[in-house]
């Protein structure tokens, strides 16, 4: 069966420090991978998605970047964190295009980032 792991679960970082959140999917090949951010317990904002190794699409210009060094690994990074980067970050995967033909997104447990 497929599983998705995200870490760290909780992170407290000072302003200006770097960030690396990792996400790994097991039990499937060539998944579509996504990073969402949920601010203040509200709606989800799509940040990045990837349809293959090295292929990253950015939805919102910001202080963050994403990389996909391996088929089932997705990394969210920042060189210098801002206060506004605080939030709950969710990694997700789908097999094929999410939403098309009813394909669902499968979510990780999330990473809570607090920038002080």
């Amino acid at each position, binding site marked *: 069966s497929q599983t998705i792991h995200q870490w760290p679960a909780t992170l407290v970082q000072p302003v200006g420090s770097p960030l690396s959140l990792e996400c790994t999917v097991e039990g499937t090949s060539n998944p579509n991978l996504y990073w969402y951010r949920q601010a203040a317990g509200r709606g989800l904002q*799509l940040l990045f998605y990837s349809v293959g190794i090295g292929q990253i699409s950015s939805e919102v210009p910001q202080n963050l970047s994403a990389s996909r060094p391996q088929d089932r690994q997705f990394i969210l990074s920042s060189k210098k964190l801002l206060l506004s980067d605080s939030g709950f970050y969710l990694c997700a995967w789908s097999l094929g295009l999410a939403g098309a033909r009813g394909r669902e997104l499968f979510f990780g447990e999330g990473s809570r980032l607090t920038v002080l």
Partner: protein
Amino acid sequence: AQTVTQSQPEMSVQEAETVTLSCTYDTSENNYYLFWYKQPPSRQMILVIRQEAYKQQNATENRFSVNFQKAAKSFSLKISDSQLGDTAMYFCAFPGGGTSYGKLTFGQGTILTVHP
């Protein structure tokens, strides 16, 4: 822009009663899927139910059902016989970028509290 709107930030219901969560969306596409996701306090988001717009019959999954009104672009979630474990944030989701883009757009969410 294709959008998803949930107009009820918070709702509450007594255990064993029925509650309906509202969702409206905007699209120019003719065939697509709509989704309801649940995010319990433990945070892992899971799919509750999906509806294909091409089908007139409303989807049902045990105590969860939808009232899909395609012309009105309305997609509400009905929870019957509410249980304490239904306490969660609920998100309506839709392929906001079109089904060819493989991205789900989420509403702002409705926090549902089930009281004993």
